[in-house]
């Protein structure tokens, strides 16, 4: 009744939300959305590209991962690097030969892994540099050992795991994977992804 139809909404000034609040909103979003959000405004883009934000983002995923993990029962594979796709409820088991530098305790699992899905986009959200330098294709996976400022990525074409250091942006080869299997949330059966067979 009282609204003026002709009023132009786009004239409004952008909401000046404190960075803290923007962080709070962004950590709730899937990585795919973050990737698109880089083109919304400069402030948001700066936040998304900030390694400190990516760290926070991954830690938030970590706690959600922990919650999701409780629902999964693994019969067999796990050992070595373990990861879970949050959005598809799949669990990945990547290698049974851990490099000495990583202990196999609770801190060494990969947080998230996806075959060309949302989380590899988190890598991209951090900056296309990693994508070009290390991943090569969009159908790679990424994970994050909780508590470290590192992300672990691998690509389909070879079986090497790479470690990406968030602070220095350095990529180093970590180890060869000798095995990769995953299970769907429902099936509870361990399968080899096509690219690894």
């Amino acid at each position, binding site marked *: 009744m009282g609204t003026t139809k002709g009023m132009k*909404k*786009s004239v*409004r*000034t*952008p*909401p000046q*939300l*404190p960075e*803290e*609040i923007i962080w*709070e*909103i*962004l950590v*709730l*979003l*899937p990585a*795919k*959305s973050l*990737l*698109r*959000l*880089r*083109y*919304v*405004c400069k402030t948001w883009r700066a936040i998304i590209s900030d390694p400190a934000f990516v760290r926070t983002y991954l830690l938030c995923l970590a706690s959600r991962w922990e919650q999701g993990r409780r629902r999964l029962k693994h019969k067999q594979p796990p050992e070595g690097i373990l990861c879970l796709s949050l959005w598809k409820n799949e669990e990945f088991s990547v290698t049974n030969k851990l490099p000495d530098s990583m202990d196999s305790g609770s801190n060494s699992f990969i947080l998230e892994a996806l075959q*060309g899905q949302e989380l590899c*986009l988190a890598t*991209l959200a951090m900056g296309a540099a990693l994508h070009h330098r290390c991943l090569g294709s*969009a159908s790679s996976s990424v994970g994050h050992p909780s508590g470290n400022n590192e992300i672990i990525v691998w690509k389909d074409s070879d079986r090497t795991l790479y470690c990406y250091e968030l602070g220095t942006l350095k990529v180093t080869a970590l180890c060869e994977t000798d095995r990769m299997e995953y299970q769907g949330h429902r099936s509870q059966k361990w399968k080899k992804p096509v690219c690894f067979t």
Partner: protein
Amino acid sequence: MAAPESGDGNNGAARMVTLISSDNTRFEVEAAAASLSQTLQLTILDGGGGGGDGIPLPNVDSATLSKVLEYCIKHAPAAANGGAPNATAVDRAELERFDNEFVNIDQSVLYSLIMAAHNLEIEGLQSLVAKKVADMIKGKSPMEIRRTLGFPDPTPEEQAEMNAHMLEYGWAYE
């Protein structure tokens, strides 16, 4: 089983505090509800806000404050139960229904709420509004997000950059 007599609130009357909005409107509310705000909690524990004094909130206008208090009053009983371990499923469903309805509001009101929740440090409300904004963003294209959030349209350079990005990362836009 008789519950132990609670210290405050003699005769069953809960302690009240007065909050004063930026435009000088006074709100009288139960201390338990106002204490959902971390910022206010300390003042209230120190015995402030009672009688004619009132706690001034120079950053929150009356329209926003009344909305914030609506949330606090609704959530205070559950918070008093320590996250309500003994709440029934019906109670929880009712709170959830309330929350959903509560953030179903005009965007300008939503932004005022975000700021108020942040200033007053009301944790539950902070995550509720953050989640609402996140839901508004999810699955939208950059242009749609700009329009939704009221950012100005992109400059030609920004547009070109965005197009290039969409070409390279088409799968992120599917």
